[in-house]
Every structure is written in C-alpha cells, then in structure tokens.
C-alpha cells in the first residue's frame, strides 16, 4: 500500500491527467485510478471530492451539474486552460523526481 503522503501528492496530477483525456465525474475517476493501478492505488472515495473542490477553487478544473435520463443530477468535471498548463508543470516535476530516483537506483544496482 502506498504511503498517505504519496497518495495525497499524486492525487492532483492523476486527476488532472484523467480529466485531460476528457470530462468525467467523481465515481468514474476513482474507478479509472483503481483500474490503471491494478488496484494498488485505492483512494478512500470520500477523499476525492474535497480535492476536486480545491482544484476547482484554484481554477484548474470546472464543473457543471447535468441531469441524466434517470432524472438524477450528476456533477461533471473538465479541465480548464489553466489546468492544462498546471498539468504540464506537474508532469515536468514528476519526471524530474522519477529520473533522479531511477538514476540513483540503477547506480546502486550496478
């Protein structure tokens, strides 16, 4: 299981990346993360939504309520322009960390 801090830190880039592929809603986002990580990353579902709230407040994502055919209202999220830019920055940062760690581990293996 991943450490709490790692889960918290990776939530932002993960949500932004998922939304960069198209709009989605909370439940779907959680399912995708679970699927992509082969069940290794299990977010406690309720924690996703405050994060989405925070991202929306920062202007990185936007939401709208839509009524499905069943009559239920559901909140859909999509990435904003600002969000796209923020995602690029996150990508760069994570790749830096990743590359550095990989180099270190390769060096220690040899």
């Amino acid at each position, binding site marked *: 299981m991943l450490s709490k801090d790692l889960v918290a830190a990776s939530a932002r880039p993960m949500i932004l990346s998922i939304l960069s592929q198209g709009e989605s809603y*909370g*439940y779907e986002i959680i399912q995708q993360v679970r699927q992509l990580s082969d069940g290794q990353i299990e977010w*406690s*579902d*309720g*924690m996703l*939504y*405050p994060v989405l*709230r925070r991202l929306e407040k920062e202007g990185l994502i936007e939401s709208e309520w839509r009524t499905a055919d069943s009559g239920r209202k*559901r909140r859909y999220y999509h990435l904003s322009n600002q969000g796209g830019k923020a995602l690029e920055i996150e990508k760069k940062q994570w790749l830096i960390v990743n590359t550095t760690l990989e180099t270190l581990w390769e060096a220690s293996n040899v």
Partner: protein
Amino acid sequence: MSRYEEYIQNWRHVIAEDEALSPEDLAELEDHLLTDFLQLKEAGLNDQEAFWLAEKRLGDTSTICREYEKVNRATIWANRMQWMIIGYLILGFFAFTKITFVNVISLLALITGSALLSAITYIVMETLIVSGFVCAGYILLYGGGSHQEKSAKLMQALANNPKRVTVVALSCFGLFYLTNTLLLSRIVGAYLSTHDINSFSILTHVTNILFPFILLSLLFISRRKTRPKQQMA
C-alpha cells in the same frame, strides 16, 4: 430501493450535522453512494450489504468533513455571520416592538396619569423582551447545521422578498422612531422645565434613535451577501 432511502436518510442526517458540506457537496456524495450501491447490488449483494460496503468505501465521515471544512472555510463563516446577523435583527425587532409599546403606554400614562398602565407596560415589556432573547438565542446557536434545510428555506424567503423584508423592517423602525420622538420630546420638555438635563436618560433615548439605522445598514449588508451567492448557485 425503499431500504436505500432509509439508509441514505440516516447517513445524510449524520453528515449534515457537521456544517462542513454545502448542499451541493452533499448531493455529490449522495450520487456517489447511490452509484456504488447500485453497482454492488448488481454484483449480487443485498440492500444492507451493498449500502454498508458503499458507506465503508466512502470513508470515515469525520475525516471527510474535516477536509471539506478546509476547502469551504470562507463559505461556512459567511453562512454563520448571516445567521448571527439574522439573530441580531430579530432581537432588534423584539426590542423595538417592546420599546414602541412602552413608548405608547408611557405617553398615555403621562397624559392620563394612570399607575395601572405603567404596571401593564412593565409586565408586557418583560414578556416580550424575554421571548425575544429566547428566540434570537435559539437562532444564533442553532441556525444552520442540522437545521440547514429550514434555514436555507428562510434565507431563500428573505432573499426572494427583499422589498417585503425592507418594508416590515422600515415600518417597525418607523413606528418606533415616531413614538420614541414623541416620548423624548415630552420627557426632555418635562425635564428641562423642572430639572437639570438628565444626561443618562437623554443618552439612552438618543441611542435608541440611532439603533434602527445601525440595524438597517446590517440588513442591507446581509442582503448583499445573499444576492451574489444566489448567482453562483
């Protein structure tokens, strides 16, 4: 599905106690629970099992509320301020009604010289002011929170009828102002003719005259706070 209604009511009741979630946040979490519940039922679980698991997967209620609180902090405090203002205004309403009544009775007592009228004045005055305090206190303490639905409806009613609210407030203040001025002029007149100016008495009455303007401005400030929120929702 009927058992689901029962479970979701219980869950909603617990989480709404904590003021951290806005009605929209609550609706979003409910949608999540329902989606999960339906999926689990399709997987073969019964109503009770499905809801239990869905709720467990959602996570610990207090942790969720703590997180929402951090994000919604500004809104939560704005909401509390609105309730404090409403409580204050209602207290003001009771105070003014009482003072208006006292003024009328006092004027009559001065004119007719009746002691019985003064006695009645004090009894009514005390009853009104005590009920006012109780009412205002209740609203100050309990406005919002688990009474969120009722308070939201009241806020909506106030926001949707700004003219009506203003007319009621202005009439209340106007009546008070009129009776107070009449009484003040008689009292000041009486004092000036027989005693030195009683500064404390005059200060009390001057404050009473200024008070409505302070409350009026609060009413307009709270109205402006409600308006923008409506646009966002």
